[in-house]
């Protein structure tokens, strides 16, 4: 399997707080990779470093062999590396279809494209994806009026609309009621198998992680603690210590 994202020796500190120290990892193409770790272990910082929200202090981040640590957020997104947010972010005053339409890939958008209308097949695709996440009946509603879980689904659909190569999901199941979680796991797996999108997920819910991922990294105190398959991670003493506190 090809490596899609290659992180090597990345460090990032905020003032005196070391959020990531010499972190190395890789996301293989086509799979579902998960990143776990206790609160404050530096997971979101690593995500933000990868998608270009802040410069890194040391190390290198490569996407398909290309160095991206010095690119800006929009440029990285246009390469096909997309992230969703821990706090769900949608365009709250627009309806669901509009949210979807504006999420089309902007990779090759030319100057004149700004003034074009959306062709019918794009609207169809938007509605098809809304159906995929179960929001078709809500498609004309102002998205800010949807429930939190539905907004999360909408954000996921918007990400799919963008046709990314790899999707970074920051706690996709946080705040969603347990019955919805199963549906979401199924759809994440489908996005991976049907649409061929590589997933890289931060997740606290261990049931979700073990069910979803085929490849898990564990961070603790800003350093990479362990790496392996779900089985290996579950039986790794250092991971258990990190979560429960060792003495």
């Amino acid at each position, binding site marked *: 399997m090809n490596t899609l994202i290659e992180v090597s020796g990345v460090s990032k500190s905020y003032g005196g707080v070391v959020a990531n120290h010499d972190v190395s990892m890789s996301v293989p193409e086509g799979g579902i990779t998960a990143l776990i770790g206790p609160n404050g272990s530096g997971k979101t910082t690593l995500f933000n470093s990868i998608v270009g929200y802040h410069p890194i202090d040391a190390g290198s981040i490569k996407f398909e062999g290309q160095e991206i640590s010095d690119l800006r957020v*929009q440029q990285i997104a246009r390469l096909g590396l997309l992230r969703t947010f821990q706090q769900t972010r949608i365009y709250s005053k*627009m309806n669901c279809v509009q949210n979807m*339409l504006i999420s089309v890939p902007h990779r090759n958008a030319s100057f004149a494209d700004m003034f*074009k209308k959306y062709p019918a097949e794009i609207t169809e695709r938007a509605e098809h994806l809304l159906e995929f996440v179960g929001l078709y*009946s809500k498609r004309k509603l102002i998205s800010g009026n949807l429930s939190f879980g539905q907004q999360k689904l909408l954000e996921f659909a918007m990400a799919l609309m*963008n046709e990314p190569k790899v999707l970074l999901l920051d706690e996709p199941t946080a705040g969603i009621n347990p019955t919805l979680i199963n549906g979401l796991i199924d759809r994440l797996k489908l996005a991976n198998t049907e649409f061929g999108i590589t997933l890289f997920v931060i997740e606290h819910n261990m049931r979700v992680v073990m069910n979803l991922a085929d490849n898990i990294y564990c961070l603790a105190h800003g350093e990479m603690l362990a790496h392996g398959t779900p089985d290996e991670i579950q039986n790794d003493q250092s991971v258990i210590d990190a979560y429960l506190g060792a003495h």
Partner: protein
Amino acid sequence: MMNKFTLYGCTLAFGILGPILFPAYISQITILWLMVVFALTWDIMGGQMGYNSLGNILFFGVGMYVCAIVQVGMYYDVAQYTAHSGAVKVHFTTAQYFTGLAFGTIAAALVSSLLAVAFGWIVFSLRGPYFAIGTLGVAIAAGELMGTWDYVGGGGGMSLPGFPGESDGSAFFYIAMFTLAIATFLFLRWLYASRFSLAINAIRDDEEKAEGMGIQTKRYKTVAWSISAFFLGISGAIFGNMTGFIEPLEVAFPTVTFGIFMVLMALLGGKGTLWGPIVGAILFHVIKELTWTYLLGWQWIALGALIVINVVFFQQGIVGWMQDKWPEKFGIEVDTQLGVEDTKQTEAVK
């Protein structure tokens, strides 16, 4: 929206018949259309994109000066023309006048748009209130700078070529301003039907998310501002010629009057809607003229009270309020059973 054609018809009828039926008010109605242009162009940024600019008056003044310089400069030396000693004796023929005005207006539109691109480069790194203050500073600085530039007459201002013939040109400038208002409206109606509107709405709702999704936010912001500047530049060119005499602080860069009125009109009518700024501009202009006529001495207080009521009790503006009240008339769907649907949704996913 219901009765769209009635609305268009009434507006058009008023625009054509207004000055014929009330010839004494022709310059008032010209300014009414200027206000409509102000409110419409402000709303591109302030309403649709969520960037509250307090400095859009900059492009009005720049357009005015650029047009004047081109009009005079095509036939005379501008520095001599504006010199107090009356160094040159000027006379513009009818052909010279209209050629100068045409080229001046085109130059005004282009220079204003380019300036928006240049300033956008600087001020678009500011967000929220900082953007508002930054643009306000730029507009005030521009007025003061113009006042020190002797080439265009400095603080004393410069007079423009007189309208040829017997008439004072009020009918001509009326038609020009009315056409500009219609052109601005039609252009924006077309623009808001394209993906441009979704992109700038997305920037309004969550700019960081828009960046994260790969939207070329800077490109959209710059183009949005230069579209505002384009139409404002033309309006400045027309207004300068209509007034006949321009000077920096009161006519070209009146930040505390016209500059603030643009914001108020859009807020009053309902920002972020196509018709809101128009409704706001008309209502505002009528209220302003009535208070100036019948409440002289209290007019600023009356205007202040209107602003306070608008901002405290009526933030969504008139058209915004109508949208909330009758959403189905505006093509907005509302889920009346949000709670019930939610449970169904959950079950469907199971």
